[in-house]
């Protein structure tokens, strides 16, 4: 269990505008993903937790112990905080073999137990046969596993990972995710993972914290966050396309429908609880939920095709006004010679942001 409440301010200088980080969250055992664009304060949060950077105010609790409390003047040194930190560049000591890297972390264990613990970890992380090699003699994936193993040897109370998937190819990334999922169920400690990769969020996160300019703008289960972003800004960070401003013209809870004016057209959507007639809202429609039609009709918007983008599994069509539709290659083959294009919005496809 970790509880973080902190503020860190950087004054503006001639070279950089000021920046302030103000976050407040708690995380229990499981994976919490800190997501956001670079410069949003994610890594800074980890650095404050690990004790590399001192916040200006706030309090950080690990389990029941205070590691930092500005008001009480408590500020444990990094070595006393028991935070496992996996660095972006792994930070394996280049002059030590993999085994020695683990041994460096094991010196707090009783001497007799040390050797057993290290061998156990090497085995657990499939590193036993490379134990005598130096970091520059092993692959990126092995370095990464060693780096995680090393941080776990010192029995941390929280595991902090700074962009662990960065620079890994797809296969290694899947290995890493599998490993982290195993660790999640084995270790009963919070795992905080910083990323700006959306796929990390879905594969791993029990909880997602969305960062924007030094604030956490939304927190929750990833699926829920994606289904209902708290604001248009969050929707944009999450890479949600087809985001339109709309005016609610009518709401009918009985038939679970609503009428919206968006993109200069009247569209039918579902009932949006808590909204009133005349509200201006932001709605979005997942590109894979939309359909292409050749004739005008109910809930259809005439569009002009401007671009076709090939994706590995699908085809993405981009139109004017700005709407994107994703469909299978097969469907596209049937539509490609259309003279007129209409995008149809099935009623459930229009979702409203918070």
């Amino acid at each position, binding site marked *: 269990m970790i509880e973080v409440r902190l503020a860190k301010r950087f004054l503006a200088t001639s070279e950089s505008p000021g920046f302030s980080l103000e976050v407040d969250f708690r995380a229990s055992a499981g994976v919490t993903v800190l997501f956001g664009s670079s410069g949003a304060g994610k890594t800074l949060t980890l650095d404050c937790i*690990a*004790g*590399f950077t001192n916040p200006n105010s706030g309090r950080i609790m690990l389990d029941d112990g205070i590691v930092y409390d500005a008001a009480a003047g408590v500020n444990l*040194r*990094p*070595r*006393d*905080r*028991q*935070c*496992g*930190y996996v*660095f*972006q*560049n792994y*930070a394996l*000591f*280049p*002059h030590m073999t993999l085994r020695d890297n683990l041994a*460096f*972390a094991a*010196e*707090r264990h009783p001497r007799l137990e040390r050797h057993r613990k290290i061998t156990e970890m090497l085995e657990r992380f499939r590193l036993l046969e490379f134990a005598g090699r130096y970091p520059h003699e092993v692959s990126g994936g092995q370095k990464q596993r060693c780096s995680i193993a*090393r*941080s776990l*040897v*010192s029995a*941390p109370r929280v595991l902090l990972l700074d962009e662990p998937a960065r620079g890994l190819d797809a296969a290694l990334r899947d290995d890493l995710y599998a490993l982290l999922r195993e660790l999640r169920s084995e270790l009963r400690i919070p795992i905080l993972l910083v990323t700006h990769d959306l796929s990390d969020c879905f594969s791993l996160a029990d909880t997602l914290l969305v960062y924007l300019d030094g604030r956490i703008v939304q927190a929750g289960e990833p699926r829920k966050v994606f289904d209902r972003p708290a604001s248009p800004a969050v929707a944009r960070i999450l890479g949600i396309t087809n985001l339109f401003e709309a005016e609610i013209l009518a709401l009918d809870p009985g038939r679970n429908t609503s009428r919206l004016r968006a993109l200069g057209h009247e569209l039918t959507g579902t009932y949006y609880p808590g909204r009133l007639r005349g509200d201006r809202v932001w709605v979005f429609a997942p590109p894979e939920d939309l359909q292409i039609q050749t004739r005008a009709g109910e809930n259809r918007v005439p569009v002009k095709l401007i671009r076709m983008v090939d994706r590995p599994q699908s085809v993405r069509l981009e139109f004017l006004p700005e709407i994107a539709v994703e469909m299978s290659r097969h469907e596209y083959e049937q539509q490609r010679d259309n003279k007129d294009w209409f995008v149809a919005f099935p009623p459930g496809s229009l979702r409203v942001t918070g």
Partner: protein
Amino acid sequence: MPIDWFPLWLSLRVASLATVISLGIGLWLAYLLANREFRGKELVDAIVTLPLVLPPTVLGYYLLVMLGRMSPIGRIYESVFGGPLVFTWQAAVVASTLHAIPLLVKSARAALSSVDRSYERAARTLGASEWRLFWRVTIPLARRSIVAATVLAFARSLGDFGATLMIAGDIPHRTQTASIAIYDAVESGNTMVAQTLVLTISLLTIGIVYAANRLERRQVRA
């Protein structure tokens, strides 16, 4: 006339001792300058650099005043060791040490600062003390530059003339180091002695600098 090798041996002995002492003090100062923030840090840096830029006679004069028999340090030394410090070969060690420290501090500070911070951070999160971090991580990673700097410091101590002459004097078979012996030999027209010592010192120094450069280049590649 047979050549008297004593000055060369004395020089090597003085330089070795001075290098060991300056390595200890130099590493400590370099660590402070590279890792700690304190008031007057740049002043310390400037004072450490001073021996590099001051005329050797000026440095020697300061030493004479500071370590002389009338000075507090000189008196303490005399009461502990039973004899004055000035005009002994130990005084030559002090002069050489002071000359070697700036070289060591400058190079070691740069070497320590060039070690990637993430290694030090990693070591700290793994529970390492600053002492263990310094000896097990930082020093091994900065090893080659520090060895190269030490070698240069040794060469520098070997060649000290002005300050040594001021504080240790020119007493044959007691404080006459190689550089001073060369000066003496030239003054008294002993060309052969002068040439032999000059040649020996030159070869020695070339060898040392060559070794230092090779060490440094290997580090760049690694």
